[in-house]
């Protein structure tokens, strides 16, 4: 029914309803993507634009394209974006100062160039070429039609793109890779190293914080058998924060006890 209507150039009612419902939402989301402040919101709006595009594809009987659009763009590419945004720290706002001189002008020129190129390409592709029609294009099945085009006519372009993507992935790995000078110290190595030390004092682990029976708290250093405090019993984080009680009080106390 739908494909018939498309074939004769009119739009079926369900499709029109879908279009007038989704298209404004998609445009609003696209505008919002540029205007919202938080990067994650912007990414979400972009994801919505992609999903609504997929709906349009499906409505136009390009089932495979629509579904792959969701799997690849929404599911993989946007997800990676979100990932990075979350890891980098979302609340850090972008600085509006140009770091590269003349970047804004160059960017605008490049955008216009690409836009012009695309327009002329699409115009040349569409003009003078009679439309075959959806029925003929989907003749042997939508997926089969796409597959035979991809793996016969466009196999070279397809392979070039895949080579490019693999190169990009490898490049990212090379950039992110750092050569290890020494092997990673695992739990086992740490344990061996502890026992290799001349004194076996630390091999049983560090003393636990807190003074027995009086200050059973993480911010109080433990007392050693001779009454002196052991600062090593307190977590390094607490020390760095300064959330640590002065150990001198306990030292005095220990001496007093000794005198008694």
């Amino acid at each position, binding site marked *: 029914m739908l494909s018939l209507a498309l074939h004769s150039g009119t739009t079926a009612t369900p499709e029109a309803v879908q279009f007038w419902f989704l298209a404004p939402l998609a445009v609003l989301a696209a505008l919002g993507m540029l205007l919202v402040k938080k990067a994650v919101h912007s990414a979400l709006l972009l994801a919505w634009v992609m999903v609504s595009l997929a709906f349009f594809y499906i409505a136009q009987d390009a089932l495979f394209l629509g*579904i792959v659009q*969701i*799997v690849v763009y929404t599911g993989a590419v946007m997800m990676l974006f979100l990932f990075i945004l979350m890891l980098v720290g979302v609340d850090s706002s972008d600085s509006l100062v140009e770091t590269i001189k003349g970047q804004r002008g160059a960017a605008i020129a490049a955008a216009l160039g690409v836009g012009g190129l695309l327009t002329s390409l699409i115009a040349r592709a569409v003009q003078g070429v009679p439309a075959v029609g959806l029925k003929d294009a989907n003749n042997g099945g939508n*997926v089969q039609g796409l597959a035979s085009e991809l793996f016969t006519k466009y196999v070279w372009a397809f392979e070039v793109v895949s080579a490019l993507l693999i190169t990009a992935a490898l490049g990212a790995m090379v950039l992110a890779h750092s050569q290890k000078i020494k092997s990673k110290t695992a739990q086992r190595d740490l344990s061996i190293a502890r026992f290799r030390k001349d004194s*076996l004092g630390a091999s049983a682990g560090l003393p636990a914080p807190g003074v027995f029976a009086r200050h059973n708290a993480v911010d109080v250093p433990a007392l050693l058998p001779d009454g002196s405090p052991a600062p090593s019993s307190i977590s390094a984080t607490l020390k760095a924060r300064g959330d640590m009680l002065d150990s001198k009080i306990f030292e005095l106390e220990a001496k007093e006890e000794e005198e008694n």
Partner: protein
Amino acid sequence: MNFADLLGNDPGWLTTVKAFLVFALCVLLTLLAIWSERRIVARMQMRLGPNRVGPFGLVQGLADGVKLALKEDLIPKAADKIVFIIAPIISVSTCFLSFAVIPMTGKVSLFGHKTAMQLTDMPVGVLFILAAASVGVYGIVLAGWSSGSTYPLLGGLRSSAQVISYEVAMGLSLVAVFIRSGSMSTSEIVAQQHSLWYAVALFPSFVIYLISMVGETNRAPFDLAEAEGELVGGFHTEYSSLKFALFFLAEYVNIIGVSALATTLFLGGYHALPGLTFTENWLGGWFTMIWFMAKVIAFFFIFVWLRGTLPRLRYDQFMKFGWKVLIPASLFWIMVASSFRLMSQRGASKSVVIAAAIGVVIILLAAITLFDRSKEKSEEREALGDVAPPSFPVPQIPSQRAEQLHG
């Protein structure tokens, strides 16, 4: 008449009724799943499990649901309010989508119409399920991010990394099914399996799918996203009341969803067990639904069994397993499966294909044995490596003492 035509003739109201039925079935199955999981795990741990509310504690799930709904709904101050509310909605609405393309019965009559218990039949039905799952990840990621605290963020990142990597393995395991059946539509794949289930014909795919479906649904032993000892509740730490209930519902519907997909792709869907094909006509075809449900429940039991048996994996081991074992194994298997497919398409007889398959298995086994041996040797060398003796006396290593005694 194939399924697409059969379903294409459905009037709108019938599709609506079917959609409602599928939704109700999912919710009902979730309630039963929660109850049966608790009972089965309890039995495995020598306990009784919930047995107070209703006969055998059957309505426990409902009672818990009501309790959850009546709890106070908290939104943390640091949370991003809109995203915090949207996240569980995304999670729960995508998990139901996959049921639209799963054929639950053969041809049946419903309210006087000849139809099948499947909402719609697409030529790319299986991909549709993958797409729904990949949007479902957003629920988890956004829940983690929008909560505005550390544990959920880490849990969300973990679980989305996990779901994405296991989705790759899952997608690859499905490729062999597409190659063999020559279709990506669920009903067509089921129809192709009437003589031989793909669980047998494509055994490696089946194994890879089984493993990755557990990883994909964040279930034990792969439930690293909510590892209580490390991350409290993971991505849903800050959620309470109905929003938490939605995540809970989504998790169980997802489990049933991947089980239903496994049934459809590998266990012959609604078809009866081999040798019992005559039962498919009982109850006017509705008996096929019982077969389908029995298979889905069998998969669900495996999920529970795993949870009752295996301890949780360490995160790096888990990721290593996914990327370095499952994905290369599936790629290799796809290559093998497509060569066999090509062989049989070019007219090779069945015995030739089987002989080739046996050859591949023997070569693989030999390679694995050789690899294991060389690994053992290198490990031995490492263990006996030149380490300086410690400065205090230690007992001799037994193997060294043996060498001294003999040499």
